């Protein structure tokens, strides 16, 4: 060998050092060796990408040995998860290699079973149908429902449908945005700056396991902070979730009564004068009593609080403890940068909108807007706009809002919107339906309705990796590449305070004959020709992404995901109004994006109140004028002409009980939740489905590991359990480990499901908490037939205002089917050694 071994080792040593040494040629080392040294072992490499198993879009680093992925870990530089990776993400490889993934397109035979077909045949058939719709001007008879995490795919799907002449596109998302529109005038869930807050009050949301980005919450509140200045958590909810147990303060409330507790807290803040007077005076509307155009005095939020929600009553309404309400209020008042976040079970009830309004009103009282550790609107992602195209005849406006179509609320609707699944289930006159990245037949309370509807639609095309419950009801199933096999993007998850765009790249070539749905759509457009082909000119989804993301580079905003040093530098520059110019050209930027796993922009536009509050008053509206207009409109269409009776009539049409005045309806207030089923039976329980950490996403449970640790916080996996408070269990004569059926007559299709009893001291009495995500049919392998799916038996109730389906809507009764089989499970009590 020409060089000394010792030298070679030095060469191997540094990463930066190696480059300089190698290139300056001090050692007579063959070029190939230098290359190897740079590349490291050469057989093993790490690739950054984005996890695609749930809507969060955490960054992952894939470890490849001999080009086979053998390990996933969180990308430590990704701003969302900072190296953390939830169990579902960890299971990514098991999902990738899941034995029952679809190997190729399937086509339904006339008699109902599926047969394997090729992409060629499948796409030809679909393109023919699309072509027919296009030529006959019947684009409206097509619809697209998806749940893909990325905004860019949504754009592509919308354009696809617009080009076809249809407005029927909907994206299933987690939280409804309506409350934020009513109070803040924005059409998005705002960001909550968990990373800078010192106290987070979580209303109904199990912040550390649920929500769009739980790992972000953990890393922002705990992981990336010193022990001294980490954020405390206060949790209001009915379940003893891991988040609740980790909260500094926990307030157990009956399901659906969060608003009462929150308003009680607001009462204390106002009564003790410990709210942000400055902010309330300058930036809010409807706090004090006010006089409308007609000169009538209207109820202010302050008076409503003081009259109605004194702690005793708030506690009584929510079944909680008044002292705790006061304690929490004072704690919030003491905190420097508190923020209130609402979600989960609190937004899954018939009163969800008002509950969210109440929780958000706390943010206003605390002056939590536009300050570090408060409510923020992440900056818009500067994507390259889609090139203009001439829409097909009869196509709606391109902006996507205000369109009519099946996914818009019908004109006679009392609510603002309609749940897309329900809309689809009720739609007739559809010829073609595309479903992608979503499994409503399984996870929506309207799933069984939808299943029937799918039978009516002549051509249902499902993009799916598995022959899951929804795909099984389709006519053509197109296999989808998983996140490790394809180019994909993910955009800022709901509730995150900065904008982020994750880029997922293929790290292995697709194991099976699968494609990204975007690629399939582009191919379909090409084949269908006409307006479709011109509207979607991209050769591949990758090319589409590349073009759209070019805007990030040219805007000069944000930066490619990088280490903390570069981050603070970008921050420094941008806060001073300088642009951090990405180096290099288009290709270099693209490669940087792919290599690092995405782009982000942590900088927020401060002081832009017009952006923050886009209501008609330009302020935060405690009293929602838009809601008033809506209610009045309802009354007017029912025949009332005067404002006040119209309002009253409008409220009545929602089927609510308002005690004080009609004004209350437009203010955050407590509205008792509607619960259906089992009448007033004393032993009836409120069914509260929840999503455990292990149940994120739709296909995670294809992993045996995930099934095995499904119930890891409370018990072992492979079963659905029901959490009952000890007194509830005692009353029902149930013990830990007993197998029960939960029955209701509220659901039109199925009435019972099975679970194993888990006694949870600290859970609220009278509630039955059940995990979603199990009881699958169609994922194949390990998951099928494991556990049961509570969604099957839910009553079809909706949020009165937003129209979103409510999952906390059902009362059930439990029947013991089998006593605990195994002897001697010991209740875990007592301290440690």
């Amino acid at each position, binding site marked *: 060998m020409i060089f000394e071994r010792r030298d070679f080792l030095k060469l191997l040593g540094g990463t930066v050092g190696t480059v300089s040494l190698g290139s300056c040629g001090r050692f007579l080392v*063959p070029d190939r060796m230098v290359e190897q040294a740079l590349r490291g072992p050469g057989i093993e490499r790490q690739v950054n990408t984005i996890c695609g198993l749930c809507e969060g879009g955490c960054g992952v680093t894939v470890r490849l040995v001999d080009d086979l992925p053998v390990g996933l870990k969180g990308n430590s530089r990704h701003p969302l998860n900072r190296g953390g990776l939830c169990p579902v993400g960890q299971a990514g490889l098991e999902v990738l290699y899941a034995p029952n993934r679809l190997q190729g397109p399937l086509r339904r035979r006339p008699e109902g079973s599926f047969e394997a077909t090729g992409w060629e045949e499948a796409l030809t058939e679909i393109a023919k149908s699309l072509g027919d719709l296009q030529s006959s001007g019947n684009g409206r008879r097509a619809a697209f429902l998806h749940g893909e995490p990325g905004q860019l795919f949504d754009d592509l799907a919308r354009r696809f449908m617009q080009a076809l002449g249809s407005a029927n596109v909907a994206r299933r998302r987690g939280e409804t945005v309506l409350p934020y529109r009513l109070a803040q005038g924005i059409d998005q869930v705002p960001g909550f700056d968990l990373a800078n807050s010192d106290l987070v009050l979580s209303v109904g949301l199990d912040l550390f396991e649920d929500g769009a980005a739980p790992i972000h919450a953990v890393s922002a509140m705990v992981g990336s902070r010193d022990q001294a200045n980490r954020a405390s958590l206060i949790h209001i909810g009915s379940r003893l979730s891991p988040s609740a147990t980790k909260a500094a303060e926990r307030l157990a409330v009956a399901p659906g009564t969060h608003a009462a507790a929150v308003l009680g807290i607001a009462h204390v803040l106002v009564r003790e004068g410990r709210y942000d007077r400055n902010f309330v005076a300058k930036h809010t509307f409807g706090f004090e009593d006010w006089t409308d155009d007609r000169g009538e005095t209207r109820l202010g939020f302050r008076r409503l609080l003081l009259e109605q929600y004194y702690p005793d009553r708030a506690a009584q309404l929510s079944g909680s403890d008044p002292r705790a309400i006061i304690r929490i209020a004072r704690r919030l008042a003491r905190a420097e940068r508190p923020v209130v976040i609402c979600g989960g079970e609190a937004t899954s009830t018939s009163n969800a909108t008002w509950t969210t309004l109440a929780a958000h009103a706390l943010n206003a009282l605390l002056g939590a807007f536009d300050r570090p550790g408060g409510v923020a609107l992440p900056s818009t992602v500067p994507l390259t706009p889609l090139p203009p195209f001439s829409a097909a005849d009869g196509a709606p406006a391109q902006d996507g809002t205000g369109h009519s179509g099946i996914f818009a609320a019908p004109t006679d609707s009392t609510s603002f919107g309609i749940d897309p699944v329900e809309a689809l289930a009720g739609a007739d006159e559809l010829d073609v339906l595309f479903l992608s990245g979503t499994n409503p037949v399984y996870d929506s309370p309207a799933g069984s309705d939808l299943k029937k509807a799918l039978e009516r639609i002549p051509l249902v095309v499902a993009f799916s990796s598995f022959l899951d419950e929804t795909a099984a009801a389709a006519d053509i199933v197109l296999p989808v590449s998983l996140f490790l096999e394809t180019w994909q993007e993910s955009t800022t998850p709901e509730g995150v305070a900065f904008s982020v765009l994750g880029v997922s790249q293929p790290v292995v070539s697709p194991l099976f004959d699968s494609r990204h749905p975007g690629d399939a759509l582009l191919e379909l457009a090409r084949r269908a020709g006409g307006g479709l082909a011109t509207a979607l000119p991209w050769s591949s989804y990758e090319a589409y992404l590349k073009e759209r993301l070019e805007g990030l580079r040219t805007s000069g905003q944000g930066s490619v995901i990088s280490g903390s040093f570069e981050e603070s530098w970008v921050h420094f520059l941008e806060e001073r109004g300088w642009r951090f110019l990405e180096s290099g050209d288009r290709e270099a930027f693209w490669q940087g994006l792919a290599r690092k796993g995405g782009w982000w922009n942590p900088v927020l536009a401060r002081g832009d109140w017009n952006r923050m509050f886009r209501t008609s008053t330009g302020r935060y509206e405690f009293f929602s004028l838009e809601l008033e207009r809506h209610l009045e409109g309802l009354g007017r269409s029912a025949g009332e002409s005067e404002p006040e009776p119209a309002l009253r009539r409008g409220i009545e049409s929602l089927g609510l009980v308002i005690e004080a005045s009609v004004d209350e309806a437009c203010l955050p207030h407590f509205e008792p939740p509607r619960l259906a089923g089992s009448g007033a039976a004393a032993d009836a329980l409120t069914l509260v489905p929840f999503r455990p950490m292990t149940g994120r996403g739709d296909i995670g449970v294809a992993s045996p590991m995930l099934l095995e640790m499904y119930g890891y916080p409370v018990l072992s996996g492979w079963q659905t359990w029901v959490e009952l408070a000890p007194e509830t269990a005692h009353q029902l004569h149930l013990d830990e480990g007993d197998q029960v059926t939960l029955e209701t007559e509220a659901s039109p299709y199925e009435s019972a499901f099975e679970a194993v009893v888990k006694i949870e001291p600290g859970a609220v009495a009278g509630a039955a908490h059940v995990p979603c995500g199990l009881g699958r049919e169609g994922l194949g392998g390990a998951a099928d037939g494991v556990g049961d799916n509570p969604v099957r038996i839910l009553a079809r109730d909706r949020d009165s205002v937003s129209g979103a389906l409510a999952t906390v809507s059902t009362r059930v009764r439990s029947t013991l089917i089998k006593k605990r089989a195994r002897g001697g499970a010991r209740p875990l009590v007592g301290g440690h050694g």
Partner: protein
Amino acid sequence: MTAAGALFALSPSSPLPQPDWLPWRIQQPIAFNHNVHVEELGFECVDCHLYALTSVRATIPNIENCADCHEEAQTESPEEAKLVEYIAAGEKVPWRKIYRVPDHVYFSHRRHASIGAIECEVCHGPIAEQVKPVGRPYWRPTMDNCMECHEESGASNDCVYCHD
């Protein structure tokens, strides 16, 4: 039936991995001549066994490496002709591994050849002189052999250094 299967599996020409205690030599698909490449042409071991110094596995070169020179025949050797065929067909040469350690053993070439500066010959013998492919391990990587050498060289014999 089973016996016949077992016999086939253990026969010199079986494509399956073979235990190293078999008395016969393992047959390679091409009679590779180390001597020509190393002694006459002056290649270093790592020129072909690319990762011997940098990685856990030294790797056995295959057509990607061989194609650098043997895209077209350099000699009239019938053995080379086989290789050229493989390259032309884009097919991997089904080399047979001679040295293998069980799954529960972690053996790193880098740790030995690079960090420990052990010459290849110590374990692989005077391979440069071989005109035929190696049919049997020069030195069998058994635990006793490993531990003996570790003992002599002062390397640790702690179990978890090698067992994972």
